[in-house]
């Protein structure tokens, strides 16, 4: 009796690794594994609905492992390090994809791209900027976003705004009017650092232009340049005038959005995903909230729009590359999927067959703004390599904590960024 139980224990311990073998076997049975960051306020329910359409159309089952947006950045690295990347995963186009392409972790998708005629499906500016790395295509743009000045319609009307500010002076006048009304003009929630980046992006783009910024992002230009100092000085001016909410570093982006929604602050510089968040909280687009473009600062500087492109990529060692290719093609080509997803997430579709009329009024305006922009730039942490982005993101929060230290901060960042570029 005694021996049987011991044998049982041993057999039991052997059975545990066998479960893993069983899992591997099932992965080979046609299903596609996927990991993504579309959770919580970023539309898990809507994403699952789109995935269900793919399964219904192709009979291929998807094995899903969603991870929260912030944690995803770590999670995907852990999976890569453990050599267990899912077949398909969501990732941010730009420097982050470039980094893992350079690390040989992704499979090129040129064949799939051609076979599905995606040149005729994906808007060319997005295809050119987001999908090509080292001469090959690696990513399908699942959706993209635009960062603009989102505001509370009632609060800005009360402060006397009749038309959106077009110039920097008009913008400053609006801030002053809001401040006089006792409302914090600008909400910012930079606890997770990235929400601060859009300020640096736009101030630099509007003063030094997209070409200079591209040089700074790739390490050709330096943080000790006068262009960077000038952009930071303008940002500092806004802090000195008391236009930002107190304790921005203590708030999350949703806290800042809530402050605008409640009317405690006038506006916030944020991506279009804020519309998904606000719609989910019962706000009505164009009626309760709207946006205007980041104002023009300097004549002769091309008007650039900033935003991220969310893409889907295939791992180099995907267990089911055929299934992964089918999934990528379906999710980006199917106009129904793209329209439903874009609306649920508060995003724009890169699929030219999606009727802009399917967007709400604010998103239609966003789509038109991007279309009219002379350049589209990825936001800071997607434009510069991840190790440098870490340096810059910390710089923004340190600056926000004490803008009077701008000079010292820039000196430090100049040397830290140079070291980070060298690796």
């Amino acid at each position, binding site marked *: 009796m005694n021996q049987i139980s*011991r044998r049982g*224990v*041993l057999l039991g*311990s052997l059975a545990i690794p066998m479960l893993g073998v069983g899992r591997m076997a099932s992965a080979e049975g046609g299903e596609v594994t996927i990991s993504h960051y579309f959770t919580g306020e970023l539309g898990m329910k809507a994403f699952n609905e789109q995935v269900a359409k793919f399964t219904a159309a192709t009979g291929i089952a998807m094995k899903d492992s969603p991870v929260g947006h912030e944690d995803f*950045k*770590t999670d995907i*690295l*852990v999976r*890569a*390090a453990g*050599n267990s990347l899912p077949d398909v995963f969501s990732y941010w186009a730009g420097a982050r994809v470039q*980094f*893992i392409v*350079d*690390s*040989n*972790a992704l499979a090129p998708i040129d064949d799939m791209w051609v076979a599905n005629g995606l040149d005729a499906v994906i808007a060319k500016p997005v295809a050119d900027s987001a999908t090509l790395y080292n001469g090959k295509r690696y990513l399908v743009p699942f959706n993209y976003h635009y960062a603009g000045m989102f505001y509370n319609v009632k609060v800005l009307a009360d402060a006397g705004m009749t038309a959106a500010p077009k110039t920097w002076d008009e913008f400053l006048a609006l801030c002053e009017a809001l401040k006089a009304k006792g409302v914090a003009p600008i909400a910012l929630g930079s*606890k997770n*650092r990235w929400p601060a980046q859009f300020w640096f992006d736009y101030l630099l783009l509007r003063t030094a232009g997209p070409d200079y910024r591209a040089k700074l992002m790739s390490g050709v230009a330096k943080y000790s340049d006068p262009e960077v100092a000038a952009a930071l000085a303008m940002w500092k001016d806004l802090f000195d005038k008391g236009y930002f909410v*107190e*304790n921005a*570093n*203590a708030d999350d982006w949703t806290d800042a959005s809530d402050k605008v929604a409640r009317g405690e602050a006038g506006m916030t510089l944020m991506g279009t995903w804020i519309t998904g968040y606000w719609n989910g909280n019962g706000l009505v687009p164009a009626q309760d909230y709207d946006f205007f473009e980041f104002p023009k600062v300097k004549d002769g500087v091309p008007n650039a729009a900033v935003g991220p492109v969310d893409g889907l990529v295939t791992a180099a060692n995907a267990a089911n590359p055929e299934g992964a290719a089918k999934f990528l093609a379906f999710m980006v080509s199917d106009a129904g999927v793209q329209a439903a997803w874009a609306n649920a997430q508060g995003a724009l579709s890169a699929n030219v067959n999606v009727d802009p009329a399917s967007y709400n009024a604010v998103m239609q305006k966003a789509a038109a703004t991007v279309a009219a922009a002379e350049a589209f730039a990825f936001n800071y942490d997607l434009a510069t390599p*991840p*190790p440098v982005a*870490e340096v810059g993101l*910390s*710089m923004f*929060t*340190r600056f926000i*904590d004490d803008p009077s230290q701008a000079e010292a901060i820039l000196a430090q960042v100049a040397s830290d960024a140079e070291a*980070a570029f060298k*690796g």
Partner: protein
Amino acid sequence: MEQHNRFWRIALLAAPLAVFGVFVIWPLVSSFYYSVTDWNGFDPDYQFVGLSNFAKIASDRLFLQAAVNTSLWMAAAIVLPTSLGLLLALLLDSRVLGARVFKSIFYLPICLSAVIVGQIWTWIYQPDWGLLNTVITQVSGEKFKYAWLAKPDTALWSVIVAWSWQQTGLAMVIYLAGLTSIPGDLLEVAEIEGATQWQRFREVVLPLLAPSTVVVVALSVVNSLKGFDILYIMTGGGPFNSSETLAMHMYNESFKKYLMGYGAAISVVLFGVAMAIIGLYFRQLRKVDRIYG
């Protein structure tokens, strides 16, 4: 028969040893290995870079700051829960009405996970509506909106307070157990000999609590070295790296900058520090064992 037993002994030991080997020894050996490479986590083609990761540590300004923070963290993690735990144990050991209820309440935080404790204290420190600022506002009569966790001067200390709040209960329970083992007649003799209350505590109670103190301090040190989760939840090492400890710094370098090789080098240094502390602890433990047997 003897042969048969030996087989079973080996067989049954094999399973836990395999688990230990796979989940403890292998990762340890791996981090030593990766610490001399430039692995970024994604790329299977990484290079051997010798000791350059360790050389980089010497010039890493953030590493130095993290080392200072780790020392502060450990010192506070030893002093605060230990002294507060002792104080609570002394208070509850004397006959206080409802001592049992108090014991349970003070012990409760240790039952919570660090993630929950971190979240509770994040709310307490919230600048607009958090408990702490609300109380200060009520007492001072002036709106107080200090962002405890978002300011570099207070972020680390705010987390230390939260950590101590949780750990004090553990120290208290160990000291309470230690207090029950102090013979009452010893204290009585001291009292008859004319010792004041302070003298009785200083000369009788405290020395007899030495074994408990060794356990409490050792647990505090070990727990503080492991204390990553609460910091991760409350500040993530921020604002701008000001509350980073070595463990947090290792995490940020590895997972945010994708410098896995460098992160492994930091972890090797951290391992060395932990081994040194554990070595000291065992030496101390042997000494106490010899005295109190």
